């Protein structure tokens, strides 16, 4: 069995001992180690080596199974965590549809900036009524103009004019 560090031994000894001692020490080391060369230890039995290799193969197999199981458990853990997170996210961020108490936004027929009213919804209803009335009046004016109701034409026109004036006033009052 060769000493792979033999080359550095003298250099190493020189750091601790003087030149004369280095030679003596180096020689002592070499001669004493020769004793081991002359009396080699017994070699391990071939069956022992075969058994060790078998044992290693079994151990590696167990390790692979263990590693796979660990991977499986980790994957299951990650999957479970993802499912739990998804459920929590759904509960936190999902907006229930048509539930009372939720804010519902309705658009006004007239822009708020123009109308400047405190009750736009009520104004919308009024507006719808006024629109209907105007349409009715327009229809009646059209009827009169076409001469379908000649007898009461004078009175009707006056009434219509009054009605329009009233609506006009109501409308702008809001």
């Amino acid at each position, binding site marked *: 069995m060769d000493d792979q560090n033999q080359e550095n031994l003298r250099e190493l000894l020189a750091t601790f001992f003087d030149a004369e001692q280095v030679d003596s020490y180096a020689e*002592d*080391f070499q001669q004493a*180690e020769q*004793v081991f060369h002359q009396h080699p*230890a017994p070699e*391990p039995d071939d069956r022992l*080596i075969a058994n060790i290799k078998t044992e290693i193969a079994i151990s590696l197999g167990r390790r692979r199974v263990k590693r796979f199981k660990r991977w499986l458990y980790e994957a299951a853990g990650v999957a479970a965590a993802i499912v739990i997170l998804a459920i929590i996210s759904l509960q936190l961020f999902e907006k229930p549809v048509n539930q009372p108490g939720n804010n519902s936004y309705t658009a006004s027929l007239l822009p708020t900036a123009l109308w400047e009213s405190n009750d736009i919804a009520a104004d919308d209803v009024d507006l719808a009524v006024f629109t209907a009335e105007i349409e009715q009046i327009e229809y009646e004016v059209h009827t009169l103009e076409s001469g379908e109701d000649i007898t009461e034409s004078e009175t009707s026109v006056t009434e219509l004019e009054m009605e329009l004036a009233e609506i006009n006033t109501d409308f702008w009052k809001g």
Partner: protein
Amino acid sequence: MAQDDDLAKLIIGCKDGNNECFSQVVGLYSSRCYGYFYRLSGNHDISDELLSELFVKLVEKIGSYKGGSFESWLFKIAANLFHDHLRGKQRRKKLIEARQGQIGSDIMDPIRADDERIDRLQIQLKRLDPDTRELILLRYYSQLSFKEIARMRSEPIGTTLAKTHRGLKKLRQLMEG
């Protein structure tokens, strides 16, 4: 250098769980490790057991090997295994109230060792103090540098050198005597 590269490849293979790489490592180191255990214990059965344990440990612990001298790492495990063996033996000895005495001398007892096969070196090694004997055997079988041995034993390199020199000189005298 080529040997170092080959060994590095083997170790990478071992870390990947390659059975063939482990087999090659067993082939490379079983002889030296067995010699180390045998010279420490003087017993074939104990050496067989310790060698098996060593390679089982190698499989278990190869992931913790972070580079550096592989021999140093492997023989540190080997040394620890032998110390564990000694401690176990000591506990058993206390339990059965066996005779008192140094653990080392008990281990090396020719009656318990393979006395029919024991050689002269084994007998003379027994006459060294356990620490020196272990140091000499570690130096010879692990082929580690004194620097690595000193680091492994957590002692100054000068101490390691002096102890080894003293021990080897004494061993030589015993063998010649």
